[in-house]
Structures are given as structure tokens and as C-alpha cells.
């Protein structure tokens, strides 16, 4: 071993030191962040297109601000707002009292802004003869009381119930307003994305699913949107901008942005932009209904 000692040159020492320096330098770059002003928005998958469009238009007006938009579901966004990892939460359901309480415990006072309205369309396979259902029947189907289509005016086939995952705002809204807070049937297939529901309903003849109106209209040729009756004796209403605004269509909901009440000027500017004429124009373009 000793014979090698003389062969160790200064060059190798330098190489060794250089390697250590490189490692340190790498840690430093990972540790430090950028300096540009940024807003993060997290939440509803239903709203993600809408919010991205707002973000793009907003960044064009004010290039100094970077707006980062991610989905994940309204529940995810609200949890992120409570945990302080996002500044704005896009949500397709209102915050529960329990969640507001959790936020208060963390010293966050939340502020609610309604920025658009959305209808939830009920979709079935185009081969299904059923054209309309009332809220009662929908509740029976989704709680598992009805298991065959002939109980709701269709064929003698097993009903395949499709729902979103429980982190979705659409899931929570549908449960509250259609199921009247009863539990979904355990047989309901919980799909990770709206597109997966559209895909499954378009291939499975006995399927029923619910999706945001914007998505349903975009997929009109793959799935059939059915009319919804407020109760057994009311007329069936198809979801559309007019019927959602007028309140005739029963399954419609407000879309929210939730913020920390101690917000930065940039966040305030962004919310004001969403409510401005230009912002509401984008709402219309995305297939939702404006708030004004």
C-alpha cells in the first residue's frame, strides 16, 4: 500500500475537492428558489380549464406575475388552502363548516367568491332508451335502491353506476343535492377523472354517470345527456346556459374561489380580473354560466 502513496498526485486531490464542491453547489441550487412573483391556484378538476384560461389571460395583462394552476379535486384544493400550500383554492362546492373551523385553527380566515355557475349533466350511453329521470330516481340509482334499468323506465339490465372519486367537488355536490346526503352505493365505480367517466359511459351500454355541463356538451356525440325533472310531476329540463341561469335545471351549482382573507395585492387583482367583463367572457367560452 505504501508504494502507492507517492503516486498520488496533486491532480487527484484537486479532482476530489472539485467533486465535493460540485455536490455542495448542487445542494445550494436545489435549496434556493426563483424570485418572480407568483400565485398558486389549486383545486377543482372541473374548473381547471376555466382557471387556466383566466391565468393565461391574466399573465398577458401583467407579465410580472406567474400563475400556476393545478387540479386534484376541490377537496384537495381546500386541504391545500388550510395547510397553507396554495393561495387560491378553486372549488366546485362550498367549504364545510368543519373545514372552515380547521382553517381557523391554523390562523387562516377564508374568503369566498362565487365566480361562475355550472350545471351537472347526467349522462347515459346513447343506446340506452331512457331520456329523462327525476331527482328521486337518480337518488335511488346512486344509493343502490334501484339496481335494474327497468325500475327507472329502461331495459331489464343491471345499472352500472359511475361516480367521481370522493376528492371531487362534483361528487360532494351530487351527494348533497341529489342523494340528500345519503351514501353512494358501494358498487358505484369511482373514476379518477371526468374523461374516464365519459369514456366508460360511451362504451358500456348500461352505464350512468354525472359530469360538469361543459364536459358533457363537449362529448355530446359520445354520450347522451338526459333531462332531469325536479320531481315526478315536473317537466324534464335539459341542462343549458339558460336553464342553469334561470334555476329551472335542478342540478346546478356555483363555482367558487376561496382565498386567505390576508391576501396579497396580486391575488386580489387576479380575483377582480375573474369577475371583470373579460373574465366572465372566458366563463362563457368555457361552457359555464356567468354570475352577472
Amino acid at each position: 500500500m505504501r508504494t502507492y502513496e507517492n503516486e498520488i498526485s496533486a491532480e487527484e486531490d484537486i479532482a476530489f475537492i472539485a467533486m465535493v464542491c460540485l455536490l455542495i453547489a448542487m445542494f445550494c441550487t436545489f435549496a434556493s428558489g426563483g424570485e418572480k412573483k407568483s400565485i398558486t391556484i389549486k383545486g377543482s378538476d372541473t374548473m381547471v380549464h376555466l382557471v387556466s384560461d383566466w391565468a393565461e389571460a391574466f399573465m398577458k395583462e401583467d407579465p410580472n406575475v406567474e400563475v400556476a394552476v393545478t387540479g386534484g379535486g376541490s377537496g384537495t384544493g381546500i386541504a391545500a388552502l388550510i395547510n397553507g400550500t396554495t393561495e387560491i383554492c378553486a372549488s366546485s362546492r362550498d367549504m364545510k363548516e368543519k373545514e372552515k373551523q380547521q382553517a381557523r385553527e391554523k390562523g387562516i380566515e377564508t374568503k369566498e367568491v362565487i365566480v361562475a355557475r355550472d350545471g351537472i349533466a347526467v349522462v347515459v350511453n346513447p343506446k340506452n332508451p331512457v331520456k329523462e329521470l327525476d331527482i328521486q330516481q337518480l337518488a335511488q340509482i346512486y344509493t343502490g335502491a334501484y339496481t335494474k334499468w327497468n325500475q327507472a323506465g329502461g331495459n331489464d339490465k343491471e345499472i352500472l353506476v359511475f361516480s367521481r372519486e370522493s376528492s371531487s367537488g362534483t361528487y360532494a355536490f351530487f351527494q348533497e343535492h341529489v342523494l340528500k346526503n345519503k351514501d353512494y352505493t358501494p358498487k358505484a365505480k369511482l373514476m379518477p377523472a371526468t374523461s374516464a367517466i365519459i369514456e366508460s359511459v360511451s362504451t358500456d351500454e348500461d352505464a350512468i354517470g354525472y359530469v360538469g355541463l361543459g364536459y358533457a356538451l363537449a362529448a355530446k356525440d359520445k354520450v347522451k345527456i338526459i333531462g332531469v325533472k325536479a320531481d315526478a310531476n315536473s317537466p324534464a329540463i335539459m341542462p343549458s346556459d339558460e336553464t342553469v341561469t334561470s334555476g329551472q335545471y335542478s342540478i346546478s351549482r356555483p363555482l367558487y374561489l376561496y382565498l386567505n382573507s390576508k391576501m396579497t395585492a396580486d391575488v386580489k387583482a387576479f380575483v377582480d380580473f375573474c369577475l371583470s367583463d373579460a373574465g366572465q367572457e372566458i366563463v362563457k367560452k368555457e361552457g359555464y354560466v356567468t354570475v352577472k
Partner: protein
Amino acid sequence: MRYFRKEKIIELFLQWTASLSIVIVICIFVFIFKEAVPFAKHPGLGELFSTRWMPTSPQKESFGLVPLVTGSFVVTVLAMLLTIPFGVGAAVYISELAAPVEREILKPFIEVLAGIPSVVIGFFGLMVLVPFVKSCFGLATGLTAFSGAVLLALMAIPTVTSISEDSLRSVPRSYKEASLALGASRLRTIWRVTVPAALPGIMAAVMLGTGRVIGETMAVMMVTGNAAIITFWPFDSVRTMTATIAAEMGEVAFGSDHYRALFCVGVVLLLATFGLNVAAQKVLSRYRMG
């Protein structure tokens, strides 16, 4: 002297990198258990044995792991039933029977299959496999445990094949030559001499494949339908433990019962893979001694 000091530093560094995995495993165990333990206090461990998984119910939240455990079990068993014959069969063919040209073509393709990201496989599953399973078996929907198992088999086969093939190739030539010299046919030599000699390696390959199958998330979430029902029928929809964690972890508020319950699912998964590894080690060492 300087040389020895430097060598010492390098040695320490290497030792540290080698022991890092032990530290990480311990950290993961401690962290997961720490987050799961408070569940025993509030809803109580009995809650985990309920048969309903309804973590966000407005009526009554229930956190029964039974449907999730059976879901993972059904998918894993089915996937392994598909993986073992195809994976080991392919390994035997490539290492013992294939002509060199065939081997040159087959091996890279198997490696490419191993490298496809699982979300891509999941997308392929949703668009192609699910409608195929539906029409093939005349089902109402193709979102079944079986579809998930087929996708998982696709992911596990390359692992099983390449490790099995390595161990088949490392069987000494002299074993085969002795068998052939005694008048055994080529196939008889393979099944009676080569495969048994390589069996510990093949079992290790199967165990590793099973590990990948249990832990896989994305592809399974996209094609199994995720309905939390207790079933052992391959053509029912199931909800696996991994898909449950992936789908729900983002949404829970820190410290809630639901959050704790998801960590309990994590503990069960961790114990399952840990048990599997211990069993694999036991089997391997027994085989070597006998």
C-alpha cells in the same frame, strides 16, 4: 498519511451510502406507524375490520379495510397466475431454446416493456384492454379486477423474465452436459435439471414481480373501477389499497380520522410487502441448504 485519510473518507462515504437504505426503511416504518397509531385511540382498531369503506360519508364515516385488502388480494393473485407461466416460460425459451438471432430480437423488446411508465400502460388499458375484456367475456363493463391483473402482468413479466433468465444461464454447463450424456432429451434436461437448479433465482424473480404488482398504483386505478366491495370474482370491480391511498391522500386534512385511516392502509401494505420479502428469504435459504 494524507492518502490514508482520503481513503478513509471515501470508505466512510461509501459505507454511509450503503447504510442509507436501512436508515430510510426505518424512517418510513417509524413515520407511517406514528401517523397511523392515533387511529387506535379515536375510532378504534375495530373500525378497520368493518366491511364498508366510506371515508367521507355524511351519514357515518366508516373505515373498513376488508374490501380494500380483498381487492388487492384478488388483483395480485390473478396477476401472478398470469405472470408466472408467461414470465418463466419466456425465460426458459430465451435462455435454453432460442437461436442467438431470436435472443437478440426478444431481449431488447422485453426490456422496452419493462421501461414503459405505468400511467401509459394504464391509459392503454383504459382505451384498448377494457373494451376488449368487455366484448371478449360478454360483460356489462370491462372495468374489472381481471383487466387490472392483465395490466399488472404486463408490468411484472419483464422483471420475472429477465431475472429468471439470468439464473437459468448461470446454471453450470456441466449439469446440462451430464444430463444429455446420460441420454436425456433436451426438454427433459430443461425441466428436470436446468430449471430445478435455477429455482431459487426463479422464485426470487417471482417474489420481486409480486412486490411490483402489490405496490403498483396508477394503472390499477384507471382500469379496476375502484368500487369498494368485497368479492373474489375476477370480473367484479375492485378497489385496491394503493389506488385508495393515491385517490384520497390529496384530499384529506392533516390529522383527521380519514388521514389516519389512510396511514393504516399504508401500514397494511408495508406489512404485506415486508412479510413477502421475509418469506422469500426463508424459502431461498432453505432451498440452498437442502
